[in-house]
């Protein structure tokens, strides 16, 4: 088998990448950092500029397909959350990753009015991380139920669940769900 060249194992600075230059040229003060790893370009942008960046990527750079929106919780970092967008361009046949930092309680401008596909993904982030998206057309919980307390994918949310008040047979299934508190095999994430 041919000896394949291994992918570079450290991220390289990508501030000279044409897409990054294009973004920083069109939206002043938007780009905070840019890196490239395993052939994937990641651009970190300012939180309040995301709609302009998304609009620019869609119209000028032809990234017309919003693949995915998600978030990452860095519990001890400031700002606490990353919101991560993936866009794909059919003409370039390539993806770009756009990230922004967001502190707990801060609102992120929605891109659901620019990319219809982002609507449910942003609802999912609100549901699981508790990051609000301003001007979102329909920001309701999506996978947990209305009235659920807490945001399960946050790192400080316990793995075994919380007391939702939904216990039907408390003598059989202790409140809070999951294994009993005195179970030696009980796993706590945080």
């Amino acid at each position, binding site marked *: 088998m041919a000896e*394949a060249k291994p992918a570079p194992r450290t991220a390289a600075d990508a501030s000279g990448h044409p897409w990054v230059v294009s973004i920083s040229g069109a939206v002043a003060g938007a780009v905070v950092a840019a890196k490239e790893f395993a052939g994937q370009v990641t651009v970190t942008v300012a939180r309040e500029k995301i709609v302009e960046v998304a609009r620019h990527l869609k119209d000028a750079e032809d990234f017309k*397909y919003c*693949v995915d929106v*998600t978030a990452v919780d860095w519990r001890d970092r400031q700002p606490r959350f990353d919101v991560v967008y993936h866009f794909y361009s059919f003409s370039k046949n390539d993806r770009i990753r756009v990230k922004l930092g967001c502190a707990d309680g801060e609102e992120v401008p929605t891109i659901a009015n620019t990319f219809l*596909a982002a609507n449910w*993904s942003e609802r999912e982030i609100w549901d699981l991380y508790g990051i609000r998206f301003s001007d979102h057309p329909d920001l309701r919980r999506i996978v947990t139920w209305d009235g659920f307390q807490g945001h399960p994918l946050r790192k400080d949310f316990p793995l075994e669940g919380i007391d939702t008040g939904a216990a039907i047979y408390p003598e059989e299934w202790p409140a809070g769900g999951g294994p009993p508190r005195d179970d030696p095999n009980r*796993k706590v994430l945080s």
Partner: protein
Amino acid sequence: MSRTPEQDEADYFAARAKAAAALHNPPARTVEAPKTLFDVTEMELNFGPQHPSTHGVLRIILKVDGEKIVDAIPDVGYLHRGTEKLFETETYPMAIPHTDRMDYVAAATSNHAYCLTVEKLLGVEIPRRAQLIRVILDELQRISSHLVWLGTSGIDLGAVTPFWYCFREREQILDFFEEYCGARLTLNCMRIGGLPFDLTPRWAEAVRAFIDDFPKKIDDYETLLTDNRIWKKRTVGVGVISAEECVEWGLTGPVIRGSGVEWDLRRAQPYECYDELDFTVPTGKNGDTYDRYLVRIEEMRQSAKIIRQCLDRLEPGEIKGKVPRVIKPIAEEVYASVESPKGEIGFYLVSNGTNKPYRLHVRPPSFINLQALPRLARGHLVSDLVALIGTVDIVLGEVDR
């Protein structure tokens, strides 16, 4: 002047396609609609959470005007199991069985997408034999997933017969999987860096015999449906969506190809050994339910062709690349995706340098495709909703995760 039934039928379909096209720009209502029996023009109707056509637990709140759908609001989450939370608590190899349980009719492609993501982060090269076997498993899985789709969406529209034939062939494929890895649905059939087991020559010959026979079976399904007048009346012009709108809604897989976009990750961004295989990416013209049906039928033929090519190329060799015993990637982030039977399934992985993923997010095709259901359903009749749920081909385990 006499007209043949064929002319009548052609006129009927032309009128239906025209009506469907008019849905894109419905004329503004100038006259107030007459009050109905109950003195309301709109009613809310609960579709599900348990309904024979949802094949899972999906609730749709329908706003109907008589029999016409004004709006459809999907309510998902009944199968939410917190898979992404579980990923964070377990080591990298332990996540593979969880990916089976998302799209449980196409577990191999979920396994594949996850393994590909971790391999990308590790920078591992996969041996050629493992690549070929992965492609064989993927394509067998694609055929079996499309067979489930064909059988069940046929049954939803009243075509009961194809179901039995589809499941007869699917049973054979599941037997192949059982012989390969011991499981029929939740396969757990790939490992980071390669595969858990090698193929036996007997298995390869049995698959070849099945594949040689399979195109004739597809012809049989087609005699039951493709020119069937009832099937066409239920599917032609139903759920028309243009290529631009598909991109806007993020629709992938057979849905975007049914609207005429020749986009398939196996061709656009080839992974494993797809770049050297000879296959075509089928596309539709009208972007309706019928065209998506034709696309999926043709995809099954192409999958059979791909499997035959891979079996021809199989040579003895390693099935696992050089992967460390304890997988501890560097603190970085990657995204990788494969073409699942439903569309693009991708994994976004953030590592913090430990032996557990810090964050592993799934980009599920079913979840994103289901989002466009209200757009597809608006203006159609309630009975067409059953056809539309079938045509986007969702698996609720993947929608809710």
